[in-house]
C-alpha cells in the first residue's frame, strides 16, 4: 500500500522538495483578460510579475476544476491498494477544497482524504511535508489525517503587504477592511484566523518598521518546529528576514520561497511574510 500526497499550486514548497517527496500538484488558474493560465505551469514567477505589472488590475483567480482532481486521483489510485491524502489552501480563501471534495466523491471517498489546511502557502507546505514523512513511515491515509489534525491550529502566517490594493481587488479582504488607511499610506500586517480567513494584525507607517515588526513577532512564536520566509518580487528584504530568522532559530532548516502567482496576485508585489509551525504540544 502506498499513500500519495496531493496538494495545489498555492502550497509554496520549493519545486525540488516537491519532486523529491513525490508530491503531486494541481494548479489553480489565473485569468489575464481572456487568457487562462495554470498557476506555476503556464507562468513562472518572472513572467507573472511582468504580466501583473502590465495589467490594469490583478488577474481573477479560480480553483482547479474538479475534473483536474479526478484525473490526478484516478491516475494515482490505479493500484486498488493505494490511497491519497489531498492537502489544500484554506476553504475560507478558495474553493479548491470544494473541487477536490467533489472529485474525491466521484472517484472513491473511502480512498481519498481531503484536508483543509486552514492556512496557505508555506503553511500548507509544512503540513504537506509532515504528511510525506508519515506516508514514508507506511501510515494509512486515515492515520495520516488523524496525525495531522493538530497542525492547522499551530500553523500560522504573518504577512507584511506593500499595499491593501491587491487584497481588496481580489475580494479576500474580510476583516482587514477596517484597516484601510484612507488617504494616509500605510503598510498592513495581516494573518489568517483559525478558519483560514484573513485577519488584521496591525498597520505600520513604513516598510522598514513593518519588517522589524515581522522579526519581533517571529520571536514571540517560539518554540517553533519549522518556519519559512515567503516573498513576492524583490527577494532583498526576504533575505534580511531570513537572516533574522536564522539568528533566532539557529540550526533550523528555514525555507525561502517566492510565492506562487495565485498568492502573488492576491497579495501584490513587495509582499513579505513568514509561515511557521509551532512545536507539537
Amino acid at each position, binding site marked *: 500500500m502506498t499513500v500519495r500526497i496531493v496538494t495545489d499550486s498555492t502550497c509554496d514548497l520549493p519545486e525540488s522538495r516537491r519532486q523529491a517527496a513525490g508530491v503531486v500538484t494541481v494548479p489553480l488558474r489565473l485569468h489575464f483578460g481572456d487568457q487562462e493560465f495554470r498557476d506555476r505551469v503556464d507562468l513562472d514567477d518572472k513572467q507573472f510579475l511582468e504580466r501583473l505589472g502590465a495589467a490594469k488590475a490583478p488577474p481573477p483567480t*479560480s480553483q482547479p476544476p*474538479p475534473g483536474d482532481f*479526478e484525473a490526478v486521483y484516478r491516475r494515482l489510485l490505479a493500484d486498488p491498494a493505494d490511497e491519497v491524502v489531498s492537502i489544500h489552501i484554506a476553504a475560507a480563501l478558495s474553493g479548491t477544497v470544494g473541487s477536490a471534495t467533489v472529485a474525491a466523491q466521484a472517484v472513491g471517498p473511502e480512498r481519498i482524504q481531503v484536508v483543509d489546511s486552514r492556512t496557505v502557502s508555506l503553511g500548507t507546505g509544512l503540513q504537506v511535508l509532515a504528511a510525506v514523512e508519515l506516508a514514508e513511515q507506511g501510515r494509512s491515509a486515515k492515520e495520516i489525517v488523524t496525525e495531522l489534525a493538530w497542525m492547522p491550529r499551530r500553523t500560522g502566517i504573518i504577512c507584511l503587504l506593500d499595499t491593501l490594493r491587491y487584497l481588496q481587488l*481580489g475580494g479576500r479582504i474580510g476583516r482587514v*477592511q*477596517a484597516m484601510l488607511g484612507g488617504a494616509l499610506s500605510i503598510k498592513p500586517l495581516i494573518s489568517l484566523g483559525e478558519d483560514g480567513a484573513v485577519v488584521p494584525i496591525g498597520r505600520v507607517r513604513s516598510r522598514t518598521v513593518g519588517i522589524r515588526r515581522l522579526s519581533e513577532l517571529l520571536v514571540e512564536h517560539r518554540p517553533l518546529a519549522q518556519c519559512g520566509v515567503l516573498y513576492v518580487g524583490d527577494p532583498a528584504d526576504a533575505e534580511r528576514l531570513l537572516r533574522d530568522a536564522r539568528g533566532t532559530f539557529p540550526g533550523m532548516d528555514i525555507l525561502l520561497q517566492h510565492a506562487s502567482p495565485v498568492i502573488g496576485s492576491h497579495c501584490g508585489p513587495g509582499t513579505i511574510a513568514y509561515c511557521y509551525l509551532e512545536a507539537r504540544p
Partner: protein
Amino acid sequence: MAAAESAASGAPLVVTGRALRQGLERALQRLAEQRGHINELNVFPVPDGDTGTNMHLTLEAAWLEVSQLPVEASVSALTRAAAHGSLMGARGNSGVILSQVLRGWSACSQERESLDAEGLSEALAEGSRVAYLAVKRPVEGTILSVARDAARAARKSLDQGDDLTRLAEAVVAEAWAAVERTRDQMDVLREAGVVDAGGFGLAVILTAIAERLTGQLPGKVELEPEGRGEGATKPTIVGLRGAAAAVAPKGGFGYCTEFALVGAQLGAIEIRSQLGDDAEDDSALVVGEPGLLHVHLHTKEPWELLARASKLGQIERLKVEDMTAQHHQAQERSGSPAPAPAALPLGVVTVAQGAGFRELLVGLGAAAVVEGGQGQNPSTEEILQGIEVSGAEEVLVLPNNANLVLGAEQAAGICGRESAVIPSRNLPQGIAALLAFDPEAPLEVNRYRMERAMEGVHAIEVTRAVRDSQLGDRQVHQGALIGVLDGQLVSCGSEINQVVLEAMGELPEGSVEVVTLYRGADVETDASEGLERAIRARFPGLEVERHDGGQALYQFIISAE
C-alpha cells in the same frame, strides 16, 4: 416556437432532449448578457471573484459538450454531457455548485428519453441534493437555497396536479423569490443591499430553460414580490442596487415602459421579436395571449417602441417612467438626511481642527470627530456630544491636545458607558494611536496597543509666536515663526523650511523613518512641496508624505516616527 412536445391544448407534456438543449442554449445566452450584472452583485466585501463570469464559463463548458450531440439526443445523453462538461470546466464556487446541480439532473435522467412533470421535479430535487453534498457547511442565502426552494416549488406544484407549464412557472417564481430572500439571509448581502450572485445566476438559468419549455416567459415573473420594493427581483433593478448604483450608465437608464397591447393577431414570442432589440432584453416581459398582451420593458427610445407596437395592436394603460430621474431621486433620498449611525460595539471619538484632518481621521476609522484644537478647545459637553453621536457602546477618546486630556477624561467619566481616554497630546500621536485601533479587539487591549503606538511618535508644530520670548540666547519676536517639538520651543526664524529643518535636527538620532507633513489652511501647496524637497535634501533616506490638514494658526503640523 414551442420547444417541448405539445399536445393539442398547447401545454407541453414532457421535456424532450431537444427542448432542454434549446433551454440550455438560451440559458447560456442569458448568462452572457447578465454576466456583468451578476459580477456587480459581488460587492465589496466579496466572498469570491467574478460569479457571473465563472457561472457563464461553467455553463459554456457544459454547452460545448452538449452541442456535440445530435439534436435528437435524449434527455439522458444531454444531461450527462452537460454534467461532464461543467464538471471539467467548473470555475469558482458557484461554477462547481452549478456543475453539481447538473450532475444531479443527469443522475435522475438516466435511461430516460424525456422528462414528464414528475421527472422534472425529481431532477430538480436531485440537483439540489447533490449540490448540497458538494459544500461542507451549506449556508442559507446562497445558490444552494435557490436550488432547494425551486425544487420544493416543483414538488408542491406537482402535488397540486399542475401540468408541466404551470410547474415550470412555479419553479421560476419561487427561484426569484428565493433570490430575493438571500438579501436578508446573509449579513454581507444585507449590508450591501444586494442579492446573492450565484443564486441570481441559477435563477437566470432556470428562467431561460422554463421559457423554452413554456414557449414564453412564465407569467409569474412579472408579479411584483409582495411587500417589497418595486421590481426587486428583476435583473436590472437588482443591478442598480448593487455597487454600480453610484454611476448611471452612459446615456442614462432609459425609460421603464409598460402597456397592454389589445387586439394583436400574434402571440407573445412573435410580438417580442417585432418590438425590437429592447424587447429581447432580459428584463423585458411580453406575456399573455394573442388579443391581450402585457408588455413591460426598459428602453432608451420609448417613442420608437410605441411606434412599432401601435402597428401591431391598440396600446392601452400606457405608463412611461424616466428611470434616470428616479435614480437621481433615489440617490438624493439616500444622501439626506444622514442615516442614523449603526450601533458600534467599540468606537473612537477624537478631536481635530481642519477639514483635512477630519477626513483623515474618519478614513482611519474614527467614529466621531469633535471640532476643535489649539486656541479653540471644545467643551466637555461637546466631547460628550461627540461620544453620543458616535453611537458606540464603548468609547475610546483621543483628545489630540495636552489641554484637552482632562476635559476628555471628564466627558468619558460621565458618558454612562465603558470608556477610556488615550492621552494623545497632539494630532500625530492621535493618528498613530488610531492606526493601532482594532474595532474587534476589547477596549483594554486597544487601550494598551494605542498607548504603545503613540510612543516614539514626535510632533513638530510650526506657528507664529504670539509674544516675545527667549530661545536659549536668541530673542524670539512676536510674529516670528517658531518650531515646537513635542511641546518644547526648539527653533525660530522667518522661513518655514529653516524653522522645520532646525526643529528636525533636535529629533533623537536615528529614531525617525517616516515624516508626514500636514499643511495648514493658510499655506500654499508650493510651500508644502518646497518643504518636502528641503527635508529630502537634508535627510536622505527618510520617507516623506504630504497631506492637507487644513488647520488654522499652524502652518505645519509634522509627524516624525
